[in-house]
Structures are given as C-alpha cells and as structure tokens.
C-alpha cells in the first residue's frame, strides 16, 4: 500500500489579521515623573528612574499575536515579561495603552462583570504556581476545573462533572484522582489540573507564565508535551513567557526578547536562537545550557 501524497495548496500570501493587538502598554511602579521614560530602558541600562525612583516596568509596548500563533517572550528576571503577561491577563492595572482582542474589544476598558466574564471565557493564564491562578487546594481537582464551567452558567452536576473529568483525562490525570483534593497532588499534576482549567472553555488567548519552571525535568517534558498538543493552532493565540530558551524553541513560532522593560529584538524563534543581533539576546543565547 502506498502512502497518499498530501495535496499542497498554493499559498495565501498574507497572514490573517491579528487576534490581539497591543499598543503603547505602559506600567509604572512608583509615582512617575517627566523624565521616567527618557531616562530608563535598554539604552539607559536601567528601568529605575534616577529622578524619582519609579520602576518603569513597561514603557509603552506594542505587539501583535495572530490566530494560531505562539509568541514567546524571553528575558532575564525583572525585564518586564511577567508584568506584560499579567497586564494582558487583566490581573493588574495598567498606566496606559490599549489591547484589542478580536471579538471582545479593548481589554483594558473592561470593568466589573464584563471583565470577569472575559477572564473566564476569552482569555486564561497558566501560572508557574497553580495557586496563583485561583486553584484551591482543599477542593477536588474536578471541582477546580468545573468552576470555570459554573462561570458559564451551567449548574447540572452530571454534565459538568463529565466535561471537567474528560478534560482532566486529556491532561493525563487518572480518573481515580479526579475527586482528590488538589493539595494532595504533586507539582506536575497540579500543573496538569491548571491546564485543564485554563483550556476547558477553549479560550481565544492562552497566556502561559513560566509554565514549567520549578518542575523536575521529566515532569517538565511531560507538561511541555501536553501544552504543545493542547495549543489551538487554528483560531486561538498563545503567549508564553519563559526564561528557558528550550521552551520557546519547542513551542513558539516567533519570539520577542525583553530587557529593562523594552522589546530589544523580535524574530522567528530560530532566528532569535541562531542569529541573535542584540547584545542582550546574544548573551541569553550564549548562556544557554547545551
């Protein structure tokens, strides 16, 4: 029997419109002053304003994420990458800028119920620490996942349980443990539950904040495999923040490099890893373990 030759379509030579468009995202920690933006950043070599002491975490970030795209964000500690992700997750206020999510509108303008609804339906964040993501240790794994469905308005126990259990099963959590309190789970298993909770409503935008940091290597590989399989490569967008270049190499189509709050380099992930231009990117790549 011969293998069928796959048909290659002629290319459609334009990417689809951006799913997420961020313009001028600004976040300061401190009072701020007139010289904050001019005296900080990559060229200044600091993100701390010498005049007023304000930390300029994000001076005005622009970025786009396309449908089906995985964007990696790398940088050293304090570069602003996690602040950027948490701002997009609506977990903290911003001091300026816009973030338009297709079908939702301007994210930073959302308030109250609309904001909560978007955070459970349209975008979700997976944290390094599952309990930062709102998971509760005393509740069963299945209940932690089903909470997201309750937010949808579902109240019938059996369908909720089946759907949550099905997602946990896809994440490799054995059915015999679905009713166990999350506090009895290992770090890797908690991360699987967090992924199940994040993905159960098929978010448009999946935000991953150091999703494998702190896990032992074998668990890290399993969680990365789950993430790679779970990412929607059609309609949804994914942003993964990590200090581990191996993670972006495996997951990300495109990578941006942050330093002192600014994006200092952007390219396809292989371009960033194989032909880095900015000195900070070169330093990150050169310090990668083999």
């Amino acid at each position, binding site marked *: *029997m011969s*293998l*069928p*030759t*796959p*048909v*290659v*379509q*002629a*290319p*459609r*030579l*334009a*990417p*689809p419109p*951006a799913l997420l468009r961020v313009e001028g995202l600004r976040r300061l920690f401190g009072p701020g002053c007139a010289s904050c933006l001019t005296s900080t950043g990559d060229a200044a070599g600091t993100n701390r304003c010498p005049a007023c002491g304000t930390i300029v975490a994000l001076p005005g970030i622009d970025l*786009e994420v*396309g449908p*089906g*795209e995985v964007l990696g964000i790398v940088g050293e500690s304090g570069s602003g990458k996690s602040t950027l992700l948490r701002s997009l997750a609506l977990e903290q206020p911003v001091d300026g800028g816009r973030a338009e999510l297709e079908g939702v509108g301007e994210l930073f303008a959302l308030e109250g119920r609309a904001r909560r609804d978007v955070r459970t339906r349209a975008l979700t964040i997976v944290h390094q620490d599952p309990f930062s993501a709102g998971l509760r240790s005393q509740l069963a794994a299945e209940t932690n996942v089903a909470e997201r469905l309750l937010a949808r308005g579902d109240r019938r126990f059996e369908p909720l349980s089946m759907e949550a259990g099905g997602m946990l099963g*896809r994440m490799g959590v054995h059915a015999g443990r679905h009713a166990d309190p999350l506090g009895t789970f290992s770090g890797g298993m908690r991360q699987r539950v967090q992924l199940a909770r994040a*993905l159960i409503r*098929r978010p448009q935008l999946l935000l991953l904040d150091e999703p494998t940091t702190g896990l032992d290597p*074998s668990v890290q*590989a*399993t969680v*990365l*495999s789950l993430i*790679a*399989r*779970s*990412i*929607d*490569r*059609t309609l*949804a967008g994914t942003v993964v923040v990590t200090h581990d270049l191996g993670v972006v*190499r*495996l997951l990300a*189509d*495109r990578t941006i490099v942050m330093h002192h709050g600014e994006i200092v380099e*952007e*390219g*396809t*992930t*292989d*371009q960033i890893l*194989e*032909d880095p*231009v900015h000195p900070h990117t070169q330093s990150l790549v050169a310090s990668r373990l083999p």
Partner: protein
Amino acid sequence: MSVLFRAAGLRKQFAEGPVVLRDVSLNAQPWAPLVIFGDSGCGKTTLLRCLAGTFRLDAGSVHLDDGHGHHRIDDVDPRTRAWLRREHVGVVDGELIAPPCDATRDVLVQAMAGQAAGGVQPSADAWERADELLARVGLDDAADRPVGLLGQQARRTLAIARMLVRPAAVLLLDDPLRGVLPNAVAPLGALIADAATSSALVLTTTTPPPALFDHAYDTMSLTDGVLR
C-alpha cells in the same frame, strides 16, 4: 497553481569572518526541484538558513510567488515571516525538535493533525498512516518509544519523515539523507521525490546520493560561496 521560490544576490558574512555566500541566486518550483551540492563547510547550511529566514542577509532577497502576488521572506515583518514559515515553508536543517517524552508514532500523528491540533483529535486513519510510514523508513520497532530515547540516526530519520507527511509549498532540506537510518535512505529519497511534485524543493547535499539523483533534479554546486 505553481509556486515559485527564488533568491537573488544573497550575500552572508559572519562578523569579521570570511564571506560565506557571494551573490547567490536560484529558482525552484514544483517539478523542478534544486539540489545544491558542495564540500563540507562550503556554506550549504548557511545558504539554506538564509533562504528560510533563519539567518539575516547582508544583501539580496528571497521571494515566494504564487502567480498572484509575492512575499519577500527576508523583508517582511516578524509576524508575517513566522506565519509564512508555519504555513508555507518547511525546513529541516538540524535535530528533531519534539518533546522528548512523546512517542515516535505520536510525533507523526501530531504532524498529520497539523493545524487541527489543540484538542481536535487527529483523523481516524492518522495512526494507521503513521505506522505505515514508520515501517517504510525502518522505525516500526520504535513506534511506541519516547523520541528522547531514540538514537541519532532514528531521530534524524523521524525529523525528515515528519516534514514529509505534511509538505509545505516550499521545502528546504539540509542534506536530508545524511545521518538517517541506512535502510531509510531509499524510501526517504522516494518520499522526497513525491513531495517535489507539489512543493518547490531546495535541498543540499555533500555528495549526490543515487537515491535522489534517480529522479530528475536540477543540480548546482556551491564553491567558495558561489553557486554554479
């Protein structure tokens, strides 16, 4: 519709080192694939990476045309370049990139699912097709083995096979039959020839292997950074 992939006047030099590519131009389209051969260290991998957009060019341009329009791959914004790479340009120029705990068969099944990944199950026949391909390239015994436990030749074989289950409009393969399992050379050569009927194919090789030259390929040699 025929896809044309072309490069004009490519030049590449690393830092203060020698010039690796000098004014390199080429064309490739379906049914007229291009084999570039040359000695080790002559710049074949650099050329392929310049074509793929992995390496930035010092001069020149790389174009992808479909008859209606074209992109300059070297001169588009990063999101467009990443999208072109994901959707239309397949590259194998190094080791297999896959989670080490994934089973060999799963790597192929996921590649077949392609854009349908993300909770969408692969088609019913994907597992059967994966097993058939693994048997063809001599990896049937490794179907259930994690790729992290595969030997170098097996990983290389799997990397090429994965690219060929979902060929793109443009395929860039760096010495695809080098370092693969010995009994995979002929079947991979045949699969590459099949892919060349629908993809604009550019591949490099140190020595022209009969498994590829049985098929009607255009050939050029790369010497001292010049393509002839």
